[in-house]
């Protein structure tokens, strides 16, 4: 298990490095005159030149990158070119918002999809068909549309939950939960649809296996059969799908944060990319890729725990 984790960890580090390098190169290749954007429309050419020097933009791209990398390895992601705030401080402010809705979305999709998938596979009949139809609809609905519908009906019309904004957990755990439910749900709908189908399929496969029949013939209770044997063997496939869905959730967060007026990593990435704020965007990219790597690693651990064969794979 240790070497399995070490291999996964190493490939994660390589992924973070490759993606951050590519992002840096692409950002610097756009030819945007960031110094003028930062200096302001009334800036003289001398002030623009001064800004360029201050930001180190007059130096070769490679040396700028090495500087950034050196800092990043020591935990210093630099300062935003526009606000002047340390990138790590900005990310510390924004990350909890995105993590709350993305992990909330992941948790919701894991729970609901397992319940739906298992129910559809075991009960079959009308329930199965209903779950399948619901899954197809859920898969077809883009998260921004779900977000718009939820914000309007649940937030504005019925006033059950906040239509916009985020409350920190420290300020009020109750208000925090309220502020993340609708965005999490908006993100989760697509993932639930995809994962429920996967769980259903795997469960049907497993339930048709000989050993299940053998166990059943020995008089094992239905509950024990389902939970201890079938679901445990069906789970790895579902976890794989969930891991892939997580990447989708992170991407979906950009739009969902916009609809719910949440100042998270997604909206920060949007603004930073639009302005050409390289340090801020690099910080966002590193954090998000790391997050994806970590969550996938955790899912791998869960897979390994559920299925020992994976550990030697």
């Amino acid at each position, binding site marked *: 298990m240790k070497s399995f984790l070490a291999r996964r960890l190493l490939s994660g580090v390589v992924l973070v490095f490759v993606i951050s390098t590519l992002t840096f190169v692409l950002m610097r290749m*756009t030819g*945007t*005159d960031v110094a*003028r*954007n930062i*200096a*302001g*429309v*009334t*800036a*003289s050419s001398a*002030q623009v030149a001064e800004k360029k020097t201050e930001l180190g933009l007059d130096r070769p791209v490679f040396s700028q990158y090495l500087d950034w990398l050196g800092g990043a390895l020591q935990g210093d992601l630099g300062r935003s070119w526009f*606000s*002047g*705030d340390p990138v790590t401080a*900005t990310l510390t*402010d*924004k990350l909890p*918002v995105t993590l709350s809705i993305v992990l909330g979305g992941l*948790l*919701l999709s*894991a*729970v*609901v999809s*397992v*319940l739906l998938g298992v129910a559809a596979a075991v009960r079959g009949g009308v329930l199965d068909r209903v779950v399948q139809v619901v899954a197809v609809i859920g898969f077809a609905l883009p998260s921004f549309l779900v977000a*718009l519908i939820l*914000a*309007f009906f649940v*937030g*504005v019309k019925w*006033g*059950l*939950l*906040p*239509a*916009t*904004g*985020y*409350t*920190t957990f420290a300020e009020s755990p*109750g*208000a925090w*939960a*309220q502020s993340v*439910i609708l965005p999490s749900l908006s993100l989760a709908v697509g993932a639930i649809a995809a994962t429920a189908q996967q769980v259903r399929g795997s469960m049907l496969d497993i339930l048709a296996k000989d050993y299940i029949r053998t166990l059943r013939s020995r008089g094992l209770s239905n509950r024990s059969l*389902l*939970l*201890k044997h079938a679901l445990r063997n069906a789970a790895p496939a579902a976890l794989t799908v969930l891991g892939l869905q997580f990447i989708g959730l992170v991407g979906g967060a950009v739009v969902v944060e*916009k*609809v*719910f*007026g*949440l*100042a998270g990593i997604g*909206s*920060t990435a949007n603004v930073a990319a*639009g*302005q*050409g704020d390289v340090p801020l965007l690099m910080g966002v990219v590193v954090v998000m890729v790391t997050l994806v790597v970590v969550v996938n690693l955790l899912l791998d651990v869960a897979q390994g725990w559920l299925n020992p064969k994976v550990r030697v794979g």
Partner: protein
Amino acid sequence: MRRVLIGAGVVAVLVGTAACSGGAATGGGSGSRTLTLAPLVPAQPWDLKDAGLGNNTQYYQPVYDSLLRLDTEAEPKANLATEWSYDSTNTVLTLKLRDGVKFTDGTTLDAAAVKANLEHNKTGSQEAAGQLKGIKSVATEGTDTVRITLAAPDPSFVANLGSVAGMIASPKAIEAGTLKSTPVGSGPYTLDKSATTGGSVYTFVRNKDYWNIKAFPFDKIVLKPLNDPTAVLNALRSGQVDGALITTPKNVAAAKSGGLNILKYAPGDVAGVYIWDRGGKISPPLGKLKVRQAINYAFDRTELIKSVYQGDGQATAQVFNPTSTAYDTALNEKYPYDPAKAKALLAEAGYPKGFKVDIPDLSAIFPEAQAAMVQQLADVGITAKLVTVPPGEVINQLLAGKFAMSYMSLASFHSWDTVQIQIGKDTTWNIFKNQDPTVTKLINTAQHSTGAEQDTAFKELDTHLVDQAWNAPWAVVENSYAYSKKVKVVPQAFTPVPGIYNFTPAN
């Protein structure tokens, strides 16, 4: 599986609890003594040298007080400065300061503090600093008198001291270099950092030592930046914010039906087609007067106001603000919608089949306006070839002179501001630095005169620019500001959003 079921149970309980208690919290965003607004943009750095104007002003107003205060008609009134006067050359402005004002760090407001601020802020390169660029020197006389010497007369300078350019921060904080992240002023409120999250929510609590506390009835100001039109509407309709600008005209009806009041006012922006290359440098046809006049005849301004601005605007053919001394209503009759005349003028100018011109694709920012412009130009034979430009690069590329013309909305306040923004030879939006002897002469007269003589010079300048078809403006646009029934608000001339002192509780 048990764990999964427990997880599901926890989520269900959480959803249930939240659903039961949701109403109270969502509605509780702003009590009667708290004003919660949603500006379009997050706060800029707090150092006034890096300050912007327009939508940014609501962040600076709570913490910083200004030398003068603009009334709702944008006329300067006494504030930190109680008296002011120019010398006979209109280049030396003497200000007398209010006694007994203190910054929140305990420093006293005196002439030296004002000098330190003006000298510091003019070194910046954002919009507020741009209004201070004309300062040659600042001298103090005793502790309560400041003498500002300008390089040349600036008819807008006094009014600018009533906005962000005239705001004063603690000189101690300027010297310490801490202003960028922590504002220290003498304003009616202070930033409550413990209840502030950058980019998301900014909370200001009362400065109990403020000298004019009765002018600010709210105990707390909360600013929650929101830039998505749907998020703005949802926040307003669910009572999470008390006021926000509606940037999408079609959302105005939705706001009204949601029980909100709508305040309509002209913030001082003139929108339409700006002809940057009127010298014909990169697009030779635009160098010809008849072509520029043809462009003016090509637009059906009345129809454009209906379709592009949903009726929220006033047709104009001038770049000057209707409330400014330069504006002349009669000039709007100069170019009625007449595509046949436009075609005839193009033929007379040597372009019977029209011509092609590159235009930045602004469909991401002004979709309706751009579509209308392209269509009406095409109707008279002018082909607008759309060039893709990343939204963050539009201003840069325009200012770099890459386009001969485009749709744009530019600020237009007092007559002199318009000259300073787009007509003077070296001004930001006179991109190709066009000038002719009449323009130069009239600017010069207006700058060095006052009263009736100055008004006449501005009017002649406006007439000349319309005659010469420097641009093809369409409309003085109107803003729609939605606000809850819990507050009252009065509009402020020449600003995109009302100042925080324009709000009072409804009860």
